[in-house]
């Protein structure tokens, strides 16, 4: 237990030491998206009849920044430790693979939450946003950050080079995020692409997060929560199996 708490503390301390890069920068990026897109599209698009486009955009941006930063936290920490060799400091101690998993993933959740809160706080300055069901927000924020933290752990463990982590991010995480309805309601898509979007767990999480703010969504929030936690379960299972076998860590 102390082993896990220490690893968690170390991972949080690690990103806290470079907050401008790990929190401030992604908040600024999201804010730029918000200002540019809402300026361009405000008035041309209304979602759920009564929600302004700029308000609609905020939960998507919050979710997108949480996804990316949770992934970045665990993946970059692991790949850097592997490349510099200081990964031995966590391999020599008697940490169990559960402690290892929980330490990296929960720190990623904290980073995701910090960035998500930052984006939300900054957006609130410009946009009038309701807050209907905070419990859904917390639930989806946790599931999403944990899922991406676990994916980041898999990428960080499996990769041998930083470019491989970047490829994972650019060719999997980014497309899935952009195609999940960050910038649009999937009801504006043709039926085929609506069906495809329903299979994307990132869509479920963004759609679920919107319930927390607007009380409305494309899909039932319970179904979305089911998808989110099922994905988290599967990805965590893969990550734990990798850690247990020592894959790429213990040669």
């Amino acid at each position, binding site marked *: *237990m*102390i*082993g896990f*708490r*220490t*690893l968690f*503390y*170390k991972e949080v*301390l*690690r990103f806290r*030491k*470079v907050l401008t890069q790990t929190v401030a920068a992604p908040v600024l990026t999201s804010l730029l998206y918000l200002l540019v897109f809402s300026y361009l599209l405000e008035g041309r698009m209304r979602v759920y009849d009564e929600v302004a486009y700029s308000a609609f955009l905020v939960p998507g941006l919050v979710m997108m920044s949480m996804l990316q930063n949770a992934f970045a936290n665990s993946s970059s920490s692991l790949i850097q*430790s592997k490349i*510099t*060799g*200081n990964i*031995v*400091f*966590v*391999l*020599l*101690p*008697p*940490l*169990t693979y559960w402690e290892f998993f929980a330490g990296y993933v929960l720190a990623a959740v904290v980073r995701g939450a910090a960035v998500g809160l930052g984006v939300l706080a900054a957006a609130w300055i410009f946009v009038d946003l309701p807050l209907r069901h905070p419990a859904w927000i917390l639930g989806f924020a946790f599931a999403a950050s944990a899922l991406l933290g676990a994916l980041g752990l898999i990428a960080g463990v499996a990769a041998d080079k930083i470019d491989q982590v970047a490829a994972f991010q650019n060719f999997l995480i980014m497309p899935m995020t952009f195609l999940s309805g960050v910038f649009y309601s999937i009801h504006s898509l043709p039926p085929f692409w609506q069906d495809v979007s329903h299979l994307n767990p990132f869509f479920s999480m963004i759609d679920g997060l919107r319930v927390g703010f607007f009380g409305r969504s494309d899909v039932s929030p319970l179904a979305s929560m089911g998808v989110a936690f099922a994905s988290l379960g599967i990805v965590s299972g893969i990550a734990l199996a990798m850690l247990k076998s*020592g894959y790429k860590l*213990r*040669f």
Partner: protein
Amino acid sequence: MVAAIEVRGISKRFGTLQALEDVSLEIGQGEFFALLGPNGAGKTTLISILAGLARADRGQARVMGYDIRADYRQARRALGVVPQELVFDPFFTVRETLRIQSGYFGMRGNEAWIEEIMEALDLGSKANVNMRLLSGGMKRRVLVAQALVHKPPVIVLDEPTAGVDVELRQALWEFIRRLNGDGHTVVLTTHYLEEAEALCGRIAMLKLGRVVALDTRANLVRKPHSLNLRLRLSGRLPAELAARDHGRGGGEHLLRLREYAEVEPTLTALRSAGCVIEDMELEQPDLEDVFLEIMRRPEAAVAGAA
């Protein structure tokens, strides 16, 4: 009393390279043990297997009686490893590094001991300095401190003195010797054979992944021959002695004798051949002589010795 380290029939292959082949050895509690061998002999691989960083293809190993796979948590708690590579985490200060390492081993309230090892390794003034800013030797000291932070009964140091200045080397050995005196088992690899000779009670030599020698330092140094007779002569060495000359040439001769009783007849032979001795030295062969001799043996002899 259970052995500090017990290795039985460990083999490890990397692709086509047999890094370790059927290695067995036992190191008792409280020993100061040296693991020697040329580059690529498999020393680091063996240490990595003991520490759980690598996995053996065959064989078993125990640390303080704990199986490194089945009881890995106890085995790792019993072991402190100073890695060969100079690794560090650039995000943290020296004190943070040590506190974190201590926490990984499940220890809390370890401040007093952390201060003590920083003091002993002369790291006190660097406690709040970021690891990135330390010199190589300082980073090496932190690695040693990290290995000791959980007070392991068994300490393994993989070339701890590579790239370290004379002063630190002395201080480091004094500290390690003190730990050994307090009952810690110490295993060390080094390419400075005088270090091993001065410190270690028992020595294993590895070559191409096999144990080719395993004995006390005293026995190893005694074994092949017991005396070196170094000579500088005017005149040629008589034929019967020239055949046994191991000198480097240039008028320098080295004769290996089994016992002091051989000195007299050798000198007599020189005198009757009309040689004049310009310089003469009689010395005990050192570990380096033995090491080179063992490493030069042909493969067949090596396999036989193991």
